[in-house]
């Protein structure tokens, strides 16, 4: 084990240039053995570029990398892994259709006479998982386990293959709270084993929960490295944004009287096995927040409303008239819009341009033969891109090159271009940086003022509280509560989710 004061992996004066853009400008970064070092910054700050350089995916244009004090040059991620640096990404990139044991030993199966020793793999894998506190059947397919277990398997594999430094790139983005705790137990045990752990996340509370030090980047520059015992969350946010956020979404309480007439009503809408029948009306100029844990049926509810899944009972009423919503095309025709939770899978068309991504829903609504002329496309894309402050070099670049926050705004723009009456946002701020986060919250408030009916699903209660007129709570695939006015506080929502009578325990 290395001396705690001496870094196991160090980057000195790293410079990386893409075209005319300095993605990293003289950045220093060091992780010690036996510490968890959080790396923070808004999207575009240079976090992923730095990680890619440390793990050999990119070559730096300047500066040095030192491993245990000796200069090294990683030619590719495999090379870095061989030298002791392992990486686990947000999306687990293992083989879901192979067993846990096979995933752990893929590429280094113990063999005898050239044949894989299956039994030995299974026993070794079970022993390995036990050291991570997981008692699971390692012969079962990896894909049959929760994302949290898959993450831990990925971590175990990375640690086995490398063993000095572990990079965790947003590992908690798709986990619920219990799973995050389980993951953090694993992280702490690895820290105790003397690994240097680099932890990237968007969640500040998680940074404070598990990390020892934090390094903050902004616009490719090193802002600073701090001991987390000496800084507060506000200071960290200020360093990230370079300004006082002043809690932009601690808005004045929502004015209940401002809302308009009922726009959309769902009566007894339900689908066996997915969501129990629920009834909900949304007014013009109203935001209804949806709270609930992962798997509580909150996303399933939105999918039924939008016709992604077909309801087997109940009806949808728009402006007093029943409408048929059996598929998303009919939902769009009824004036609905839906920003799905999984942007990459269900939202963006990665290869298509920003412009095309914005006009696509409008074009789908207009039909095959009423094509939007190029000038009209430019005008619409330009208008909504300005409106939502979408930052793209130009509107002809593939949308996949934008940051997560900007991609989310592109999808939002797509629906706004369609002039909807009812908009569903499923986790609109998940996985995007603090700045874009605040902008999305502002946009939600603005759309409400403009008279839209909005349904916003979010697991960030502070946020739900800030913009909702009403909050419905989902639990076990049922709508279990509807909160109004003064009841809309994180404490009450948590109580409703947990089915407790209200306690005064602080939330978060």
């Amino acid at each position: 084990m290395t001396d705690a004061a001496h870094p196991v992996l160090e980057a000195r004066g790293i410079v990386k240039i893409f075209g005319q853009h300095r993605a990293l400008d003289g950045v220093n970064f060091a992780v010690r053995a036996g510490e968890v070092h959080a790396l923070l910054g808004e999207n575009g700050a240079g976090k992923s570029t730095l990680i890619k350089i440390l793990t050999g995916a990119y070559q730096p244009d300047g500066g040095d990398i030192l491993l245990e004090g000796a200069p090294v040059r990683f030619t590719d991620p495999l090379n870095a892994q061989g030298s002791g640096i392992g990486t686990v990404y947000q999306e687990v990139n293992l083989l879901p259709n192979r067993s846990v044991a096979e995933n752990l030993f893929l590429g280094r199966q113990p063999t005898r006479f050239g044949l894989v020793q299956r039994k030995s793999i299974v026993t070794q894998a079970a022993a390995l998982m036990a050291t991570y506190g997981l008692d699971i059947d390692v012969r079962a397919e990896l894909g049959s386990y929760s994302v949290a277990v898959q993450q831990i398997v990925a971590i175990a594999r990375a640690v086995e293959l490398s063993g000095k430094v572990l990079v965790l790139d947003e590992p908690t983005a798709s986990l619920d709270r219990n799973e995050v705790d389980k993951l953090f137990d694993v992280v702490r045990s690895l820290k105790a084993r003397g690994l240097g752990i680099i932890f990237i996340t968007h969640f500040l509370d998680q940074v404070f929960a598990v990390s020892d030090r934090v390094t903050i980047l902004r616009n490719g520059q090193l802002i600073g490295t701090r001991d987390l015992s000496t800084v507060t969350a506000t200071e960290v946010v200020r360093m990230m944004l370079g300004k006082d956020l002043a809690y932009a979404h601690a808005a004045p309480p929502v004015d209940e009287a401002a809302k308009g007439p009922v726009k959309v009503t769902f009566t007894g809408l339900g689908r066996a096995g997915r969501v129990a029948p629920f009834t909900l009306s949304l007014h013009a100029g109203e935001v209804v927040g949806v709270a609930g844990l992962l798997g509580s049926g909150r996303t399933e509810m939105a999918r039924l409303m939008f016709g992604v899944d077909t309801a087997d009972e109940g009806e949808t009423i728009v402006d007093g008239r029943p409408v048929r919503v059996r598929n998303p095309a009919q939902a769009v025709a009824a004036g609905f819009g839906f920003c799905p939770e999984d942007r990459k899978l269900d939202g963006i068309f990665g290869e298509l341009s920003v412009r095309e991504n914005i006009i696509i829903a409008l074009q789908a609504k207009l039909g095959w033969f009423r094509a939007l002329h190029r000038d009209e496309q430019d005008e619409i894309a330009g208008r909504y891109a300005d409106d939502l402050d979408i930052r793209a070099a130009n509107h002809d670049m593939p949308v996949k090159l934008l940051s997560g926050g900007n991609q989310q705004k592109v999808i939002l723009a797509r629906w706004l271009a369609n002039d909807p009456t009812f908009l569903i946002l499923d986790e609109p701020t998940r996985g995007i940086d603090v700045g874009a986060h605040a902008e999305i919250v502002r946009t939600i408030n603005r759309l409400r003022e403009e008279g839209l009916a909005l349904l916003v699903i979010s697991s960030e209660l502070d946020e739900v509280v800030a913009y909702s007129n009403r909050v419905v709570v989902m639990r076990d695939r049922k709508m279990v509560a509807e909160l109004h006015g003064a009841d809309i506080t994180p404490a009450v929502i948590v109580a409703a989710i947990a089915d407790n009578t209200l306690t005064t325990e602080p939330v978060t």
Partner: protein
Amino acid sequence: MKRQALTSALLRPQFAALAAVLFINWLLFPGFFTVTWQDGRFFGSLLDVLNRGAPVAILAIGVTAVIATKGVDLSVGAVMAISGAVAAVMVSTGTPAAIAIPVALLAGLICGFWNGVLVTYLDIQPIIATLVLMVAGRGLAQLITEGSIVTFSDPVLSYIGTGALFGLPMPVVIAFVLMIVTTIAVRRTALGLLIEAVGVNRSAARFAGISSRLLLLLVYSFAGFCAAIAGLVVAGDIRGADANNAGLWLELDAILAVVLGGTSLLGGRFSIPMSVVGALIIQAMNTGILISGFSPQFNLVVKSAVIILILVLQSPQAGQWLSRRFTPLTPPPKRSAK
């Protein structure tokens, strides 16, 4: 602006490849570019490339849209045999061509529609769904011709394969018109964009309210329709329907033409004219090897070598490597992003 777009289009590697192949043909056979006028039409090796390349070009036009949706159609060769068989049997038993031709085209349309139903409603992977018709279709064609080569002397049908219009061979005219009409149909309407959207991300397309099923049915039906046209051209050319050999392996040439034309097998961006250029590259190579006097056995080897070369030139990695080689390494001075 327009001129710039045209120049950049002409600078694509496909045109360079076509020019290179034609140039080599000229080196091998100096009379390659000689075109003569005789009996009211043009003759020459160049015309031959266009004429022989027409069936694959016609197939490629249909297959391009399928591939753009992230699908593939292996059945177009068999559908050619079916349409040729239908037309040949009908005219040889006395049905006028004016009826036989639409019926043959309809047969192709139905075949394509069948593929579309398998892919969209039964959710079978396109490669398997169309493999069914690739195998069964040829059997179907043999049943229609009752196992023999059906010959005919119908003037209209043979005009499609061997006639000339404006001095150009009829197959060339058909392929050209089909290319123009299809390109206009997909680019002047929203079809092109919607097809690309479905190909890039079918799930996101669904969320955006695109009815991808209807679109996929249309695309597969159109591929069947194009295959039927190609089948008529080939039948007309030999004045007969050979269910065993008509269009045999041409589905692979068609897919290759599409890929050479720059449409990814992963779906997304597509260009119908570039697929036609791809078909011409393939035919120019075939013709070159034939006229150079090499034994036809060389054909496949040379063809694959050229194809590898073109695909390498198209790969993003090669592009990056080339741009790194030929642009100065030092970046221009940094400007603030304001």
